[in-house]
């Protein structure tokens, strides 16, 4: 860490006092934990945008032109307004424009959350399409992540606690095996077993075929029924992962000095478990949660593909089949931003859990 040596203005005049205050403020902000994290977040977003910009340029393909060519070959008909859009696109991103201008326009658009028009579903915009599926994905993922984290962490904590009831230990083996299996695989297994062999659950979709979404109880129940298998694919595999991690942490905690001291104090077992062991083991567990978000998301996306669940994953799948590059690009960008944001949030709230990490880098 480089030392910044700054001369502090002396004197008691109002100007001098202002300067000193400004200096202290500056140091506080730059050294501030939150500030650095936000900076990193912005960096990630910028880097991602740049990469997203560069990669297609490397292949020299122009998605709009491709689509136009495709339609021309097929003798198909384009949506009205498509040609206008194509012309506007050319003006901003055409390969004849200097690359800096293209880049600038691109970044500007992204900054305004304008992900462009959809090629396959023109005239709907990418934002529009992604928003629709976002609701489903968040609903599924949000619930699933919370459930599996809570259940997994608690199970892991009990597994790692020597005074837990004995029969609990038998859970360890199955949980271990489950954690090795990717969500996607588990999804296939579940679909095969419970939707095909034993037709307990529906095969695919977010709700019954032909049903129009509305706010009725019937719809809600259908949603639930259809969500169970996708949810279980993710939950079962994740629980294993969380439980394992937590158990490892608890076992490491056992040998700590403060655990010995807690026992020497004659504290009740329940208190030692919750306030001493669990509370401390939660810290690295939370960090693991932040790191796992990316994996969970990609896993969930693939699960949605298997079940044709109407979330982002399915949208991506359709976009690939229909060669709608803008949706694909928008999807990648949206996911990266969400993940970076989620990581940022977890990072910022971490010091609330662990008093040893301060908001100010001392």
């Amino acid at each position: 860490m480089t030392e910044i040596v700054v001369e502090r203005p002396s004197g008691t005049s109002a100007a001098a006092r202002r300067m000193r205050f400004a200096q202290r403020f500056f140091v506080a902000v730059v050294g501030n934990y939150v500030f650095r994290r936000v900076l990193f977040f912005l960096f990630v977003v910028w880097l991602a945008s740049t990469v997203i910009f560069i990669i297609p340029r490397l292949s020299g393909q122009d998605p709009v032109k491709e689509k136009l060519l495709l339609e021309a070959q097929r003798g198909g008909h384009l949506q009205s307004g498509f040609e206008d859009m194509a012309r506007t696109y050319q003006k901003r991103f055409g390969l004849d424009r200097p690359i800096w201008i293209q880049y600038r326009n691109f970044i500007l658009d992204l900054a305004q959350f304008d992900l462009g028009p959809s090629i396959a579903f023109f005239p709907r915009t990418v934002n529009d399409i992604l928003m629709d599926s976002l609701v489903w994905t968040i609903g599924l993922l949000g619930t699933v992540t919370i459930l599996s984290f809570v259940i997994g962490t608690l199970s892991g904590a009990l597994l790692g606690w020597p005074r837990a009831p004995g029969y609990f230990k038998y859970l360890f083996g199955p949980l271990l095996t489950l954690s090795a299996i990717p969500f996607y695989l588990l999804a296939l297994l579940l679909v095969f077993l419970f939707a095909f062999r034993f037709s307990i659950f529906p095969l695919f979709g977010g709700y019954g075929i032909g049903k129009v979404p509305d706010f009725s109880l019937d719809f809600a129940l259908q949603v639930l029924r259809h969500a169970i298998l996708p949810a279980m694919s993710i939950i079962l595999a994740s629980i294993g992962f969380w439980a394992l991690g937590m158990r490892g942490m608890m076992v490491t905690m056992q040998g700590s000095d403060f655990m010995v001291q807690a026992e020497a104090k004659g504290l009740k077992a329940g208190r030692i478990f919750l306030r001493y062991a669990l509370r401390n083991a939660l810290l690295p567990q939370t960090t693991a949660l932040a790191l796992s978000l990316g994996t969970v998301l990609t896993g969930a996306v693939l699960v949605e593909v298997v079940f044709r669940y109407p979330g982002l994953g399915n949208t991506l799948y359709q976009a690939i089949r229909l060669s709608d590059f803008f949706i694909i690009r928008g999807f990648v960008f949206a996911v990266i931003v969400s993940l970076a944001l989620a990581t940022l949030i977890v990072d910022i709230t971490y010091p609330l859990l662990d008093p040893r990490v301060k908001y100010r880098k001392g």
Partner: protein
Amino acid sequence: MGQPAIEEAHLTSLTAATAARSSASSEHSLVVEDLRVHYDTPEGVIKAVDGVSLALKPGERLALVGESGSGKSTLAMALMRLTKAPGRIVAGHIYLGGKDITLLEEPEMRQLRLNEIALVPQGAMNSLNPVMRVKHQIIDGILDHVADRKQTPDSHELEERVNRLLARVGLSPEVGRMFPHELSGGMKQRVAMAIAISLSPRVIVADEPTSALDVVVQRQIMQTLGRLQQGLDAAVILIGHDMGLVAQFANRVGVMYAGKLVELGPVQQIFTEPLHPYTKLLIESLPNLEEKKKFIGIPGLPPTLLRLPSGCVFHPRCPSFIKGTCETVAPHYQEVRPERETSCHLYAGVRA
């Protein structure tokens, strides 16, 4: 040849301890009777504590010294019934206030901890819960020992008690609201002591309480400990390897070697006239401020506790080694002079 001799030694120390025990709890705060703590490892049985007997009166300060691996920390943990697998207490008794705690079930033992016997841990660097404020860590010990639900003190009382305890160890009330990592080593150790005295225990076990601290702080901590102990009239077992500290603090000193107690006696006499050859070497190896002399260590290494030497465990390193006796027969641990106990063949024929 060895068999009857060992049994005799067993009986001797037993009589001493039984005599102590029969005088009931009013006489001794803590009586340890032929305690053996073994560790079961795949390579064999490690006899970490192998037949230790001692008795502690109220208000007395006993120091236990020895090299690493001599068994003193194991003994300290055993006194609190905190021995963890693969270790276990295989034989012997520990009487705390007349009650044999080796026979107690865990819930009963839990009640006794902190209440009757408290631990001041080794360098409280990591002995405090990093995510709890100091005052809560003092409070939870108090709360979990409340005998009757209705007698639970309210938060106001608790706050006052905490502040009083902090004051007694020389800390200001603000410390209560801080987290352990915000405190210095000395402060943390004081907090540990505050916790240890919070329920006015009968016995305080201090397991190398100052080893992680610098010399100046060490002195302060020991003084505080002494002051606290006097206030409570509690007995203190101080475990350590710093003879200097021991000399200033203790009334009696016990020397441990390879899991056995080789000597026990009043502090002055141990230093001026050590009986056991090991103790002699220990005292001689202390640097002297007055005269300059050659630095003497103790030749050899402590034995591996898996395969102890035959006969007297110290014989391979003993300068007073008597060939024919020392390597074949284990010496008895007995009182060879008034208040002087040791186990060495040099004093074999002498019985007080």
